[in-house]
């Protein structure tokens, strides 16, 4: 145990677990005030387990969108986890049942913690420390938030709709490094506003996804654009994937 705690990757992994796990509180509270019940909220944290996709699902439902639109937005946002899976598989080579467990905890933060290390043993420790640590704390704090949120009464009186806006902006913010991601964000924001009056609630988000995918497909730029964790495990910025 002492030896594990002296590993730099494990220490980074645990501190990122606390920072990320804590904001499970805001997810839990916003989820129950968006109209999901306690167990639906917990199912998202236990089974879906990817912050951006979970916020997307409840954001669409809370805005009056259909279940299928919520599922689509969450699924499209989850695509990047597949890319992370490829990177981590090449890096860690998990075998047998470990592959299936590793897949579930493959998210922005565990990937960033792992790829930020250079020693293979540290890469492995960092991935598991961050992945499992966040999984446990994220679910714990989701439950806390969901229980607190259901006792709040009128969510608007507490400004919880403002909290949702702030949460999405905070998820977007770390990915806006440089001029190009800002341009993509602005174009997609404008496309969304234009689409709102013409299509059912929830669909404008999918319109923006198509626009963003087209930009990515036809333009040339950094291949790891937008692949930044919500909470940066290492202070100095580095391009993940470049060294792997």
């Amino acid at each position: 145990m002492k030896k594990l705690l002296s590993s730099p990757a494990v220490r980074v992994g645990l501190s990122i677990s606390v920072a990320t796990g804590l904001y499970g509180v805001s997810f839990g509270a916003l989820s129950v005030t968006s109209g999901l019940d306690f167990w639906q909220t917990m199912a998202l944290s236990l089974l879906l387990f990817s912050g951006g996709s979970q916020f997307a699902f409840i954001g669409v439902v809370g805005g009056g969108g259909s279940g299928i639109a919520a599922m689509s937005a969450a699924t499209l946002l989850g695509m990047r986890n597949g890319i992370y899976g490829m990177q981590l598989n090449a890096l860690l080579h998990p075998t047998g049942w470990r592959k299936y467990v590793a897949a579930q905890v493959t998210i922005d933060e565990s990937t960033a913690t792992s790829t930020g290390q250079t020693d293979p043993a540290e890469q492995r420790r960092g991935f598991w420390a961050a992945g499992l640590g966040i999984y446990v704390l994220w679910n714990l704090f989701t439950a806390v938030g969901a229980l607190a949120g259901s006792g709040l009464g009128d969510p608007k009186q507490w400004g919880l709709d403002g909290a949702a806006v702030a949460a999405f902006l905070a998820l977007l913010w770390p990915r806006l490094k440089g001029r190009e991601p800002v341009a993509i964000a602005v174009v997609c924001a404008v496309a969304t506003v234009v689409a709102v009056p013409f299509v059912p609630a929830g669909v404008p988000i999918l319109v923006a996804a198509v626009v963003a995918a087209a930009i990515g497909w036809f333009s040339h730029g950094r291949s790891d654009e937008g692949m930044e964790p919500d909470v940066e495990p290492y202070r100095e910025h580095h391009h993940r994937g470049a060294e792997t």
Partner: protein
Amino acid sequence: MSLWIWLLMACAFAYAWKLVGYFVPAKLLENPRMSRVAGTMTIGLLASLTVVNAVASGQSLAADARLGALFAAAVALALRAPFLVVVVVGAATAAVLRMLGWN
């Protein structure tokens, strides 16, 4: 009940994405287009979700207290506030603006 079905499907697809990465040949990773689309889509979706939650109510657009929350959150982020602080700032701003009569 039908929300449960879409919710569980979203969970299944999310796990499928993650798992796919561990089973496809590493050669696919060398195609930068795939990872670029995943990245630009992440930015586009989050930008869209931010805007929808700030100004859409159903199929109409509205300028209400949520716009104040968006602005306050941006200021907090520019000052490098941590995630949870940003969320609380957004909530507090919307709540205070509503109390002052801006719905």
